């Protein structure tokens, strides 16, 4: 009995105090666009991650901060996609942050594979002004396109689940998503060419 409690406590400690159930709940919330628990957990440990990166990678505060932020975005995406399971979030957070820091320092161009975690491809560097236009276009696009695109692309909710929620077939929703993407790009290009 004692060893079970200790094991559970250790597991929770490795996962920022989250139990397995709480982790699953957090993933569900994130896939519906609710980041509150994720933010609560990771922002609380952000400072210790920055300190670790500064110490381990001999980084300046700004570099360590940016690298920790990149890691938090990276883990957020991976968790939503189901590529990270309940295990050792504390370790992953600092390791991924260090990898981003090394990448920034050009010491390592490739993110090395973590234990059981596939490396993410490099994120595209999109100019801010284009993101401004895209944000404006997404605000202007009508429903249900806006929600569909946000749920699928932002919150990484699988199309199958979205189709089930909407009472439609996956194929039909895929076609609708394609039309929504074309509509979004039309709005984007009008503003871009203006």
């Amino acid at each position, binding site marked *: 009995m004692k060893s079970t409690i200790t094991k559970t406590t250790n597991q929770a400690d490795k996962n920022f105090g989250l139990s397995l159930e709480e982790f699953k709940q957090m993933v569900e919330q994130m896939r519906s666009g609710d*980041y509150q628990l994720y*933010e609560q957990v990771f*922002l*609380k440990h*952000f*400072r210790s991650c*920055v300190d670790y990166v500064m110490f381990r990678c001999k980084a*300046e*505060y*700004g570099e360590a*901060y*940016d690298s920790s*932020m990149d890691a*938090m*975005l990276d883990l*957020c*995406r991976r968790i939503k996609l189901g590529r990270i399971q309940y295990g050792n979030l504390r370790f992953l957070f600092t390791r991924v942050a260090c990898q981003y820091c090394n990448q920034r320092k050009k010491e390592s161009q490739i993110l090395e594979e973590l234990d059981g975690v596939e490396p993410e491809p490099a*994120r*595209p*560097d*999109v*100019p*801010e002004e*284009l*993101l401004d236009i*895209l*944000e404006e276009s*997404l605000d202007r696009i009508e429903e249900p396109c806006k929600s569909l*695109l946000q749920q699928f*692309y*932002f919150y990484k909710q699988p199309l199958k689940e979205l189709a089930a929620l909407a009472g439609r077939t996956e194929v039909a929703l895929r076609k609708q998503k*394609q039309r929504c*993407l*074309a509509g*979004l*790009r039309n709005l*984007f*290009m009008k503003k*871009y060419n203006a």
Partner: protein
Amino acid sequence: MKTSEKYTQPQLSGKELEKTSEEMLDALHDRQLRKRWQQQLTDDYKMPPRRRTTIIRKLRPWLAVAASLALILSVVYLWPVTPKDRYALLDEYLAQPFANKEGRKSDAILDSLRSYAIAAYTQGDFSEAARLRQQLVDRDSAIIEEDVLYLGLSYLYQNPPQGEAAIPHLERASQWSFGKFTAESRWYLALAYLQAEQIPTARELLQEIAASNWKSGEAEELLRQLPE
């Protein structure tokens, strides 16, 4: 081709549209989350994206140098300096005897008496130097410019200085035809005038020196300290 460049191409296939849209929307969502988290970290955890102290830390060595320079400059410029009076300036300008380089000349010019005078001057025995030079000048034959100049200087460098005795010799040296030491003679003559308290004459000569190229700064400084 970059994602953003591809997304802004006039024509895109269905697959390209899907792929570039996903990357663009990912980047947009990352930006939104980054902004929100940065705000929360700043507000709730007092963790701004950049620390001002980081910049200050980088600049710290330069700031230390700048502070030291500022301190030195403020000491130099703001310290209450009492202007030196003309007596102090006179002492300062006569502290280092005008060098004698006659020793380089040939023996034909340097007779024994002159050699003794030079040696006495160089050794700082200015009264002996004046006595020997006076003998050379009194001979009134084969006198050279240096004889009258160093006679005047030998009086001027004595302790106490014999300004009045120096004046006629320095006047003679300053008017020497095609003299090599005219500027030097005039400068030391002005100092001799001052030492003898002949202020109007000294002022007149110092004004001329102040307008020349040599010792002009020193002359101006002395002029500022002369009584009206």
